[in-house]
């Protein structure tokens, strides 16, 4: 405040009791604020807090150095992203293959009608007229099955893997394994389940033992693709009919 204004205000305060009181209160407030700020009792956190925090610091930064190692974290993250990208690419490839294979399948279908399937085929499979089963050619059987049965299935909420309707009677499935490169991997509201075939290394990538008998064989898997197109979870499928 300018000196002249200040002088005028002080003169007025000396004449006006209300303003004098207000001014006095202002001064008291200012003095009180300064005193409060300097007050020793408003001091510092107790010393034991420092000890506790130092112990917590040592525990976090020395016992578990991995969480603060950015390169290690980013490497893991990159691995997961790579695996997820591979899964999505495979899913797209299978979908494209299925589309391009449709005419051939029609041919196979006609051939199959001319040579009906043997009576040893389970009744459940006979109910599906499109399905082709040739017991003496297991490899072809698998391919045909993938192609003929559109594998996509819409669902509104992630279900318990054991009760999932996608699993068939002749299949053994693992639980859904979340692709944990996403923080909210399990929080998918809706999405699509895609049946894909993956190399056995995909099993290793999620920590499952790879099949030792045939490393060149493909592994069937159901991949949950969220509405954003990102793979959220995967489960592996073993067809008992093939195993037999």
């Amino acid at each position, binding site marked *: 405040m300018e000196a002249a204004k200040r002088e005028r205000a002080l003169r007025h305060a000396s004449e006006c009791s209300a303003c004098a*009181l207000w001014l006095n*209160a202002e001064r*008291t407030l200012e003095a*009180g604020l300064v*005193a*409060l700020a300097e007050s020793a009792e408003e001091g510092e956190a107790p010393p034991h*807090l420092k000890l506790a925090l130092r112990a917590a*610091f040592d525990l976090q*930064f020395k016992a578990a*150095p991995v969480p603060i190692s950015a390169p290690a974290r980013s490497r893991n993250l990159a691995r997961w992203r790579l695996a997820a990208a591979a899964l999505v690419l495979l899913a797209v490839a299978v979908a494209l293959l299925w589309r391009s294979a449709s005419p051939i399948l029609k041919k196979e279908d006609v051939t199959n009608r001319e040579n009906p399937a043997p009576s040893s085929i389970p009744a459940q499979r006979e109910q599906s007229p499109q399905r082709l089963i040739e017991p003496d050619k297991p490899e072809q059987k698998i391919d045909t099955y993938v192609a003929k049965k559109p594998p996509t299935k819409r669902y509104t909420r992630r279900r318990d893997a054991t009760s999932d309707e996608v699993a068939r009677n002749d299949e053994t499935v693992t639980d859904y394994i979340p692709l944990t490169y996403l923080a909210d991997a399990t929080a998918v509201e809706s999405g699509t389940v895609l049946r894909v075939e993956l190399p056995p290394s995909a099993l290793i990538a999620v920590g499952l033992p790879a099949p030792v008998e045939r490393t060149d064989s493909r592994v069937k898997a159901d991949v949950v693709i969220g509405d954003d197109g990102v793979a959220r979870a995967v489960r592996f499928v073993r067809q008992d009919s093939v195993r037999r």
Partner: protein
Amino acid sequence: MAKTLSHLTDEELLRLMLAGDGDAFEALYDRRQGGVYRFALRMSGSAEIAEDVTHDVFIALMRDGRQFDPARGSVASYLFGIARHRTLKRLQRERSFVSMSEDGEDGGALDEKLVADADPFADLTRSETIDLVRQAIMALPEHYREVVALCSLGEMSYEQAASVIGCPVGTVRSRLNRAREILVRKLSAVKGPTANSAPNSAMAAR
């Protein structure tokens, strides 16, 4: 050991701390714990809450310190921001302190003390003055109390306080003016309508 780090800035200490340097953590703690503790104490009026908040602030710094962005403010602002958030959350949960109305109509014990005579502070000792001011601050609504705690008591600039609260500088300025007005009114409360109305017009004239 921590003393040798005292010449480093908060940002440098934080960087060292996040690389696992315990001495840097201690140095940063020593430098900032007092302000954080006092802010929480002035906001809550409870030493227990202040201690908890200080603890939480530095635990959060250990855990989420990498999220600190120097472009958005200083380390001190970052710490006070966490402290503010924790304190308000704690106050919301506990609601052990109820704000008095801004008009001072339900002033309660504080106003009863203050309306005793025309100059109620004449005989007050320093500690009594501190108590009265503290009570008056505690009676402020939270959004006024925090600007008083940060700017008037914590000696932060308006810009720093705005960064902590996450509002424009003008908002801090106006809240502080309003808070001081409420505090002065509480401290100057006297019997009769004249005393209350005249200062209002004086304030309006400024």
